[in-house]
């Protein structure tokens, strides 16, 4: 199967690869997927006092499309409010990366990852 240009670009030059301190109160971590299914994404966001995502990092075990989906997402969420980030739809990711139908699940996983990260951050604020 041939990969789209944007997938290859993100795959070869992934943006925002890295790790944040999961324990830090201004960091939200979302880890989704399962090794047995062939993809695991860890997406982390750092949120400032006014609820804007200042930084985002990811690491992904999975195919090129999974890596590209999470890389793209980290770019998109930076500078967004939590509400805005929550609105990002998997279909937008799939469209931007021109994912073929068999790879759409990668974008779904990315959407799950950002939601999980936001909810982790929010639960920390409530605690």
């Amino acid at each position, binding site marked *: 199967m041939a990969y789209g240009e944007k997938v290859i670009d993100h*795959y070869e030059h992934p943006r925002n690869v890295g790790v944040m301190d999961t324990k830090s109160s201004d960091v939200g971590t979302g880890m989704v*997927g399962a090794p047995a*299914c062939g*993809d*695991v994404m*860890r997406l982390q966001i750092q949120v400032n006092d006014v609820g804007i995502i200042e930084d985002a990092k990811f690491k992904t*075990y*999975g*195919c090129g499309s999974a*890596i590209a989906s999470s890389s793209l997402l980290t770019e998109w969420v930076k500078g967004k409010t939590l509400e805005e980030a929550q609105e990002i739809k998997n279909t937008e990711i799939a469209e931007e990366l021109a994912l073929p139908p068999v790879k759409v699940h990668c974008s779904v996983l990315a959407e799950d990852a950002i939601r999980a990260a936001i909810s982790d951050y929010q639960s920390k604020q409530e605690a």
Partner: protein
Amino acid sequence: MKFPIYLDYSATTPVDPRVAENMCHYLTTDGIFGNPASSSHAFGWAAEDAVKQARQDVAELINADAREIVWTSGATESDNLAIKGVAHFYHKKGKHIVTVKTEHKAVLDSCRQLEREGYEVTYLDVQPNGLIDLDVFRAALRKDTILASVMHVNNETGVIQDIASIGEICRNNKIIFHVDAAQSAGKIPIDLQALKVDLMSFSAHKIYGPKGVGALYVRRKPRIRLEAQMHGGGHERGMRSGTLATHQLVGMGDAFRIAREEMGKDNERLMELRGRLWEGLKDMEEVYLNGDLEQRISGNLNISFNYVEGESLMMALKNMAVSSGSACTSASLEPSYVLRALGRDDELAHSSIRFTIGRFTTAEEIDYVIEMTREQVRRLRDLSPLWDMYKDGIDIKSIEWAAH
């Protein structure tokens, strides 16, 4: 070096230039283009002679009689003909078949079809090294078992089954024994005078012949009967109708003859190259060989690079043509059923790469492959949250993952 480097010889091989050249002489008006079944004129006779020679060349590689060779379109058709042909012919003797979970789909799906027709099939497990436990095989046989089908060499792992012993067991129990030899012919010796094998499937394109042609060996003594799956002009003694594709058969014959002449030399070289590749990779952390190293053909190395997903690794190895046991491309997300049958967990099955080398692989290419693979595995592990967890001493199996 020419890029991309071809390391997928088990998927198919290039046609040997000597074979391709000769095949061209059987197509045009300048060549021998006649129908081998045209017995009334010289065009037909010349074609018939060519087919006869090809039949002889195929038979000689496996120490069989030329009259035991039935031409087909490939190993898929041979497997279908053998399994369905025997089942349909001998159904009055019983309706039970024994095969193995690591077989090629051509065997497994033929068996599935028979199940739909009311036959019963036992699919045997293999040991972690990919080999069948002979006691398990023996225990699976029943009074109504008519056929056992076991592949000689596995296409994913290159593991060689002990078909000599399995053949003895079958013969002692009066069970017809079929062997899919698509991946073994021309790579390891096959002696059908010695082996108690009744039917054997072959393909030309796995050993430097053309695609779209194969053969089924059908034993004469003791005689094995088949019900034809392809009806028509009654070619191949009624077992497989259809005008013989002279140029394809000549190509297969040449490929089998060259294999007979050069197998020893080829294997020595491949053994050395395979050893070089394995030596160059095996000291990496969390690298696992899939399948037995000793009972394996020389051209195969199937490795799992833990914590790296196979498809992304294939994408990273873009200058190389390899295949992966990971099936992220399919909607099912199921990793290789062969590796699963070896007891590999899903993660390792998803992390596997099959390197298969052959006649035109060079040492220079192997060195490049080693360097590139090491570099890309390192890069992808730096991207892998699972690798981080492994490095932090977290047991990935202790985590409750949400399956999706």
